[in-house]
Structure formats: structure tokens, C-alpha cells
């Protein structure tokens, strides 16, 4: 019972790491980036290549995946995405879905279509008993990393100067610019952070979610559910939504395997009926 709860939490945490970048770009920058999963996939492939071909340690791969995807994010933001900030949402969706298909085809071409496997360091594989509960070590690792991330992100957004600048830039770009805030730099950095988090999530998820060229399409639905249920105006919203969905998914599959795969969607429908603007969104908020 508690093992199921723990598995659910770990799974939710993993969803959160990948989806939080999407929540940032969607909620704070008001940009619909469906190609988010492609960044996660790229992060995963970076890890696979580094670990399997060059023998880089797993712990080192995680920050590398984050940084590499952040850099890619900045480059794409500067060259492609920024042109679409003021475009309609439909244009943004079409553009980013196009990117997804290109990424799928590119990965297929260079890496092949098969599942990629990584080998975790021995201290992360296997399972330990903590207070009589069987706990997968890797899942524990994910949970800890994610918890640290949530706190860090929340602090960064609410307590730092950059956080205030970002919120100002989102609320009213023109006024923020008038106050001397470099809005385009702020957006570029935010986008980089979002992409980097996706890369990190992809790297960490490769072991549990699997990694093949269809990754961005396969998991797009999950990320979108997390963001819609959680709302996009806070970090805590998607966080709790991811936890809720993770636990519901795992528990549903455990207790009622016949319909387990649908539980996550049922939860989404119920949540959206009850709170159409997301878990914590204010009425009328973005």
C-alpha cells in the first residue's frame, strides 16, 4: 500500500520535472510550446550517448543534459520562437508541432528507432526497505531531486530580483521595458531554464519511461494534463497536479488494472469540471 503511494509520488515527481518547463513557458510567457517533449527527448538522448559511448557518469550527465538543452533552448528562442511570441496560439501550436515531427524524424535518422537503454550506477538500482516499506532507490533519487527543484524554483520566482522582473515582464511587457527591464533577455533566460528542465527530466526519465523517437508524441498528453490540471500561474499548481496524477495513475493500475490506463483521464475530467482554471488559479487569471 505505502509502496504504491511511494511509486505514485516518484512517478508524479518525474512528470513534474518534465512538465514544469512547459508550465513556465506556457504560464509565464504565454507561449504554447508543444515541442517541449522534444527537448526532454533530446536531454534523454544526450545522456544515452554520453553514458554508452563515452562512459560519462550518470550524475554528470544530468547537469550536462540540463545545460545542453538550456543552450539549445536559447538558440531556438533567439532564432525561431521569439518571432511567434505575438502570433496567435494556433500559429504557435502548428509551429511547435512541426518541430516535434522534425525532431522525431531527426532522432530516427541518427539514432534509429529502437528503445535506448542506460545503465544506472549500482547504488541507484535495486530496492531498499525504509520503515518496512519497499522503496526503489532510483525512485527515491528522483523524489529528492524533484523536491529540491520545487523549492528552488518557488524561491527563484517569488524571492529573487529575476523572479520579480519576469513576473513584471509577463504582466505588462511595455511597462516593464519602460522601467528598464530587459524583457527579451529575461524571456530568453526563462525559456532556457524551461528547456533545460525538460532536458533534465528526459535524462532522468529515460530509465523509467523509456526513450525512443516517439517520446515527444507519446508523453505530450501527460505533460499537457499536468499543466492543464495544475494551472499555469504558479509552480505549486503543476506540482500538486503531477503528484495527484502520478498517484492516481499508479494506484489505478494497481487496484483496477482492467481500466487502469483510463484513471488518469478520469481524474483530469473531474478536476477540470470542478476547477476549470486549474488547481490554484484565480478566476480570470491567465
Amino acid at each position, binding site marked *: 500500500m505505502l*509502496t*504504491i503511494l511511494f*511509486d505514485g509520488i516518484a*512517478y508524479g515527481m518525474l512528470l513534474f520535472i518534465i512538465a514544469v518547463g512547459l508550465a513556465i513557458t506556457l504560464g509565464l510567457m504565454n507561449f504554447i510550446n508543444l515541442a517541449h517533449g522534444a527537448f526532454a527527448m533530446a536531454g534523454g538522448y544526450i545522456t544515452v550517448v554520453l553514458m554508452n559511448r563515452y562512459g560519462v557518469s550518470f550524475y554528470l550527465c544530468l547537469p550536462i543534459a540540463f545545460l545542453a538543452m538550456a543552450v539549445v533552448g536559447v538558440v531556438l528562442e533567439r532564432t525561431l520562437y521569439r518571432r511567434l511570441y505575438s502570433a496567435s496560439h494556433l500559429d504557435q501550436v502548428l509551429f511547435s508541432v512541426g518541430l516535434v515531427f522534425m525532431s522525431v524524424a531527426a532522432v*530516427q535518422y541518427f539514432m*534509429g*528507432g*529502437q*528503445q535506448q*537503454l542506460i*545503465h544506472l550506477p549500482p547504488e541507484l*538500482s*535495486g*530496492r531498499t526497505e525504509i520503515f518496512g516499506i*519497499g522503496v*526503489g532507490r*532510483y*525512485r527515491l533519487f528522483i523524489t529528492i531531486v524533484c523536491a529540491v527543484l520545487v523549492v528552488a524554483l518557488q524561491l527563484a520566482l517569488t524571492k529573487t530580483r529575476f523572479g520579480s522582473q519576469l513576473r513584471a515582464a509577463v504582466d505588462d511587457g511595455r511597462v516593464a521595458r519602460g522601467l528598464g527591464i530587459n524583457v527579451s533577455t529575461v524571456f530568453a533566460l526563462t525559456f532556457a531554464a524551461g528547456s533545460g528542465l525538460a532536458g533534465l527530466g528526459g535524462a532522468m526519465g529515460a*530509465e*523509467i*519511461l*523509456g526513450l*525512443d*523517437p*516517439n517520446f515527444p508524441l*507519446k*508523453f505530450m498528453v*501527460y505533460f499537457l494534463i499536468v499543466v492543464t490540471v495544475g494551472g499555469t500561474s504558479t509552480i505549486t499548481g503543476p506540482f500538486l497536479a503531477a503528484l495527484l496524477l502520478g498517484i492516481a*495513475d*499508479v*494506484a*489505478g*493500475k*494497481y487496484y483496477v*488494472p*482492467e481500466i*487502469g*490506463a483510463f484513471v488518469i483521464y478520469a481524474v483530469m475530467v473531474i478536476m477540470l469540471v470542478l476547477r476549470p482554471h486549474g488547481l490554484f488559479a484565480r478566476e480570470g487569471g491567465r
Partner: protein
Amino acid sequence: MITRRMLIAAAGLAASALAGAPTFAQETVKVGLIVPMTGPFASTGRQVEAGARTYMAMHGDTVAGKKIELILRDDAGTADQTRRIAQELVVNDGVSVLAGFGLTPLALAVAPVIGQAKIPAIITSAATSSITEQSDYYVRSSFTLPQAAVPVATWATENDIKRVVTLVSDYGPGIDAETWFTKEFTAKGGEIVEAVRVPLQNPDFAPYLQRVRDADPDAIFVFLPSGVGSLFMKQFADRGLADAGIKLIATGDVTDDDILNDMGKPALGAITGQHYSTAHDSPENKAYVEAYKAAYPDMRPNFMSVGGYDAMHLVYAALEKTGGDATGDALIEAMKGLSWTSPRGPVSIDPETREIIQNIYMREVKEVDGELYNVEFATYEAVKDPAKTSDQ
């Protein structure tokens, strides 16, 4: 006027030249190989192609005075493409035999085409039992899931496994495997504690595995497509099911030779039943693996590749038998009842069902010379597709 007459004469000449062309083309027999070379099932296509080309490299490209030409086409794993490509191959390229078909729906898609063109279609991969009943022109060189699942069940009952949880992917082949394993296992006195079906697009096995663990069976019987299978193996080991004394028994798809080595330690000790292992100990297989590795050093021949290899053998042997007559009906008649020694062991084509009859080997994943292999330790000889024999 003269010019016009000359034009007509020229046209007539051209027409007679065209009409003469087919007799000239008879000297080559074209085999259309349709497999997924891109998309999620690309590894199947690559293996089948490699197996077929290895056969041609080993046996030359002429048989009974005919030159064999292999035309490779990619259907990317979508059924409407398979059918369109099959039509093109038949109409434009004039192929005498179609082969390939990575998945059940892809194989089924060509049934109307081969029925009209009256040419044989050799199934090198798709494993749902019912396909060959859809047209008299299907021949199978791969295997059917019931064929692999039933011996696994027999072996389990003979080896003190009494309570089993089945876990399969929720689609055609998975349900085939579950049905036939259960049928055989319960008939021999075993008990199925629970039957779990996992969605095909399943991100995380954790809840299912926990459920299996809590049911505490003697063994878990698994069928999953090969890529997903490797993820499963890892989570199986991580969750400590092996330590809890639960054996893993499966059809060979889960420990696919192509990726087995990448799975690492978690795969060790898994027991599977299938018709081919790269480690199969026979002179035929040694020669095959050697020729294969020479052409494709980065790959390891798996059960899909041997399907491609034997498909080519069927074409060659049938042509030899007909003395070079490449018409569809002659070929399909010649294929029925053929028997030969394949790299997988002795095989034959059942004249009634056009299914392959072959040995199913029980194997255990072991480390041999620093690499992981499916090492065979028991054999069920000349297994027919049980889904068809028991109906009679």
C-alpha cells in the same frame, strides 16, 4: 505522308519491342520485401533484410537458371502503405513473390492483393496465428505466438511451477500468448493466479509489477514487444521480484537477441521459449552467424533475421522444385511440404496450413564470453501451430 507512315511503323516496332519485354524479364525472378525500415519497428525491418541478404550472399543469386532480385520497400509500419506498396510491386515491378510484413495488421493488409495477383506472400515476422487463414497464398517463415507460448507452459508445469501470473501487452499477439499459455498451463494442472494486460503505450510498469509481487506466484509469464520488454526486465529486477523467488518465463520476444546484450545484468536467468537463438549450436547456425556478422558487424542476428533468411530459402527451394517456373500457383504448391535445415534447426512447411513446423527451444539468459546469450537447454521437437491443430 511518308513521314506519317514512318511514324506508324516506328510505333509498331516500339509496341512489338514492348510486348517482347516480359519474356526477356522472365529471366529474373523478383522478390518484393516489404518491411518497416523506419518508425518504431525499424529494427524488425533491418533484421529481416539482413537475414535475407545474408542468404543471398551465402547461396548466390541464381537458382534454376533464374536470377533472383530482391526489391526492398519500407512501409514504416502502417498498413495502408503496405498495401499500396504491394500493389505497386505487383503491377509495376512484376514481382513473383512478396515477403516481409513486420506486424499482424501489415500482413493482413496485403491479403486482397495476393489473392488477385495469385502470388505467394511469405510472412517473415508477424506472429498472430490467424493470418494464414485469410488467404491461401500466405506462407509463414517466422513463428506464431501460440507455437512459442504452449511449450513454455508445458515446461513450466514439468518444472514445479504451480501458480503463475500472466502479464501481456494488450493487443492481438499479447492476447494470443495469454490465451494459449493459460489453456496449456491449466490443462496440465497449473493455476493462473491473475491475468494482467498492460496497455501497449505504457510508460511505467511499477504498479503492475507491484501487483504481481503481492500476488506472490511461483513465476510470471510475460509477452511484450521486444523494445518494451527491455524496460520491463529492468523494472522487474529493480523491484526485487527475482529476489522474492518469482521466476520470469516468457516468449523469446522479451529477450530479443538484438538488444539482449544492452539489457545487462537484469536479464540474467530469464527463461524463454522460442524457435531461434543466436547461440543455437549447429554447423548451419555457425555458418549463418559468421556470414551475417561479416556483412553487419554491428548487429546480432535475431529471430526476425532468421525469418528473412528462411523466406529466401523458401523462394530458392520452390524455384528449384518447379524448375524455374515462377508463376504464383506453382510456387505456392512447391512451398507446401518443403523441409530443410535452417540455422534454427530442422523445419518444414505444413502442407495443410502453410505454417512453419519447427523446434521450440527453452533457453536461459547466460553470460558467454562476456556477452549475454539465450542459451538453449531443452527442446520441444517439431511443434505445429497449436491454434490450428487443436481445432481439427
